[in-house]
């Protein structure tokens, strides 16, 4: 049911964007680059990718509490500081080898689109089941951020998440967050900029943010 919306969305975003860049290129002193990065949100169905997409871009794609809500790709622009980053929301996928048609859609995106980065969104409660996809994304040579979402629900169940050892073991950035409660979204944005090398390492990054 997102399809209609999404096609409309995508279309209007593209339109808006070219219009926007033209405007900004003309009238802005500091020119904004057209698109500073292209990132995709991937992960198992129903882990909060679409909620995160809505948070990052301000566009609305349908969010529902069951797997299979999103059946098509939607695109939006996230403005993080002065950067414009294209964010792509995908249908769920369990592994790089697809089973159903929606999974195929996500996999094709990974195969064919040139992405600067993927954010692998996982459910903190089911981390063990979802990490295999993180490995596969890393093996594929993609730049990966692991976003451990739904931390609020994990805490309610009495689970404690300590991501430091995981960061070291995997060698990729790990962000603990709750997209629905807007927890950790700022850290995620910062990590995105760092990884796209728009920002120096964490310590000085804070100074940047304050300025």
């Amino acid at each position, binding site marked *: 049911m997102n399809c209609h919306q999404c096609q409309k969305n995508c279309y209007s975003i593209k339109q808006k964007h070219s219009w926007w860049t033209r405007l900004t290129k003309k009238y802005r002193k500091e020119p904004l680059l057209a698109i500073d990065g292209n990132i995709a949100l991937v992960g*198992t169905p129903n882990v909060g990718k679409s909620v995160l997409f809505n948070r990052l871009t301000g566009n609305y794609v349908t969010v529902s509490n069951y797997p299979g809500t999103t059946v098509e790709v939607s695109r939006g622009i996230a403005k993080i500081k002065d950067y414009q980053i294209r964010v792509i929301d995908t249908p769920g996928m*369990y*592994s790089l*080898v697809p*089973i159903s048609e929606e999974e195929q859609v996500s996999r094709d995106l990974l195969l064919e689109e040139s992405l600067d980065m993927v954010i692998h969104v996982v459910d903190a*409660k*089911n981390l*063990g*089941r979802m990490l295999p996809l993180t490995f596969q994304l890393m093996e594929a040579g993609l730049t990966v951020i692991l976003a451990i979402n739904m931390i609020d629900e994990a805490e309610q*169940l009495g689970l404690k998440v300590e991501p430091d050892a995981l960061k070291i073991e995997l060698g990729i950035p790990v962000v603990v967050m709750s997209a629905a409660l807007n927890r950790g979204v700022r850290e995620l944005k910062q990590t995105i900029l760092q990884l796209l090398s728009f920002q120096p390492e964490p310590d000085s990054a804070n100074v940047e943010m304050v300025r």
Partner: protein
Amino acid sequence: MNALSKVQIGQVQTVAQLQTQDITIRRKLMALGITPGSSLVLEQRFPSYVVKVGYTRAALDREIAASIFVR
């Protein structure tokens, strides 16, 4: 080794084997975290099988459930 249709409801079981010729069924089960060595709890059999693997809950029909064997 026991078929899922025989085991007691509500007890922790360890998955021993997935017996199916159908590679996609195996992939589906693996996607849900049901793999040899993982533990699961059978919660009900009717109208559909419901199993809990860690904090994941999944509904399975009889045919898929029949491919799961536990210790």
